């Protein structure tokens, strides 16, 4: 193991965790086959203001873990605590913002009405709603498109609208499930920069599921590497690139070292070259 691993507790700030996952298991029954063990023995703490990426091959349970955190899936065993309460209580308190791979905008609502939807459900008065929608559309650079319908926007713009919607009610945690997976590389890099900007401005804790190693390294403060069958956390890699991240971050030597470390870890060699690593959870 990396000798640096002993230094980890000092690196994690002594703030109470926003998300505290202990011993989470989840198994899905398969009709006429062996059940799929989607998650096994998951242990993870996420601190306020962190940007955590969950990365791993298909079927490693990263999307399931995201949904367990958001109380969209109930685990078979273990506990999930969010902001000091159960995941269910956190959901009913509207602590979560969700962004999916598809924008999931409602095509009968204008952009502004889509962004206002969670506020409507929370009975926010109309004037306050209008103010927040304007602010959010400004944040994701969609001002001027309030009255457009989703089908009149490009894929990247639709996804930005869905980010604005997720942030509109100021949730403490933003859960993003491969939000840029369906976009082309250029749009994806631009939206990465945009998410970082939003993150810096709002201070929201972000849990981000991705397939892309460069994306995970560029965005995150920590990358959680998962392995499939059964889905478990294979490795947690601290990303110590300086903040704020810019286009230059993508060209630094440290960036390439970290990309290599994540890649090695995904291949099953969790001893990142130069990266501080710490195995968490799993059967160990």
């Amino acid at each position: 193991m990396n000798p640096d691993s002993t230094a980890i507790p000092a690196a994690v700030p002594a703030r109470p965790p926003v998300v505290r996952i202990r011993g989470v298991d989840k198994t899905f029954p398969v009709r006429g086959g062996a059940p799929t063990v989607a998650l096994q023995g998951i242990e993870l703490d996420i601190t306020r203001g962190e940007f955590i990426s969950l990365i791993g091959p298909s079927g490693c349970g990263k999307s399931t873990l995201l949904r367990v955190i958001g109380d969209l899936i109930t685990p078979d065993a273990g506990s999930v605590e969010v902001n000091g309460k159960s995941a269910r209580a956190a959901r009913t308190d509207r602590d979560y913002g969700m962004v999916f791979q598809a924008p999931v905008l409602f095509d009968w609502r204008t952009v502004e009405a889509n962004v206002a939807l969670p506020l409507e459900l929370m009975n926010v008065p109309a004037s306050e709603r209008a103010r927040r929608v304007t602010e959010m559309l400004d944040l994701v650079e969609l001002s001027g498109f309030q009255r457009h319908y989703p089908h009149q926007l490009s894929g990247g713009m639709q996804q930005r609208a869905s980010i604005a919607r997720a942030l509109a009610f100021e949730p403490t945690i933003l859960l993003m499930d491969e939000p840029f997976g369906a976009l082309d590389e250029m749009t994806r890099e631009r939206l990465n920069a945009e998410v970082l900007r939003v993150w810096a401005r709002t201070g929201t804790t972000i849990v981000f599921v991705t397939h892309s190693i460069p994306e995970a390294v560029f965005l995150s403060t920590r990358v959680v590497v998962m392995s499939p069958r059964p889905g478990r956390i294979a490795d947690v890699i601290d990303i110590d690139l300086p903040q704020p991240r810019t286009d230059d971050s993508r060209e630094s030597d440290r960036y390439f070292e970290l990309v290599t470390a994540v890649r090695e870890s995904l291949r099953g060699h969790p001893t990142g070259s130069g990266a501080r690593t710490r195995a968490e959870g799993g059967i160990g």
Partner: protein
Amino acid sequence: MSSQRPESESTFELQSAIDADSSGAYAVEQALAYGESADSIATSADTGMEAVVGAWRSPGGQLLRTILGIALFLLVAGLVWEAFKWLAGDPWRFPAFGYEHRPPFRLMQAQDLQLPHLWDIGSALIEPVQRNADQSLGQFLIGAAFVTWVEAALGFLVGTLVGILLATLFVHSLPAERAFVPYVIASQTIPIIALAPLLIEGVGRGLASVVFIAAYLTFFPVTIAAMRGLRSPDPRALELMRSYAASRWSVYRKVRLPASLPYLFTAFKIAATASVVGAIIGEDPAGTANGLGRAIVNFNQQYVTGPEKLWATILVAGMAGILFYLLVRLVEAFVLRNRRPGAM
């Protein structure tokens, strides 16, 4: 952050917007929103053309096309009708013009008793409905059509309401769906002719039983389409609502119901014509004296002496159905005007 980024982004997204949507009018609007210079958008001739295309594709244009389509169909059907008679019907005689035509073939189906000339049907419409009557056949039939139309519209309302309520129940309760959907399907296998007399026994003669029969024919397509439509939202949309801790009622009102509208309107169009058929069928056993159904029965009995009268009644009945259909289509075009093109 470089100052060049927003600029390059807008051009990029403009391009993808144009790629994603072939509607020219929209691309222009998009470009204007981005503050592109006018000459980089399109020439004025192009925008003129695109405006025409845009108008043609607009909901109003679609309705216009529907009406033109129906008119064209009627014209062609009329030509085929008369061509058939020209080839195999009774001899054509117009003494006023000194014209006579002997069709080369003789077919019973093309004779004047089976298939009157369209102009004979037309002139029957302006002649008195009965000897010495004040009212012309046309006036009489329009009055009858109105009676039937009101019955059909009430049946349509009741039927669609029942259909939507049943679908709402089935979508929210699996046991209810398992228990009752087979009966909903079975209900449509019972011939309405057999059901009507039983119904009169129960509900009594009069408007209520006609409305019931019209509703009976309309609720089924609405139930099936509404079930499909209420279940049409993306599972992620439902997850999203769950993450907002939204109530079932909110999910229904804000997601399921709006998502089901395109499906519902498809069923409403079927239901509109079915309700007219239901009202016409129901009138005879229910004893409605002045509707199209009774007119059909009466003129059927007088067919040998005046086949044009029955044919005129059939034409008016068809028109009543088409009018109802067009009305639903008009409402659809308005309600769904902002939906994704092609969603209708």
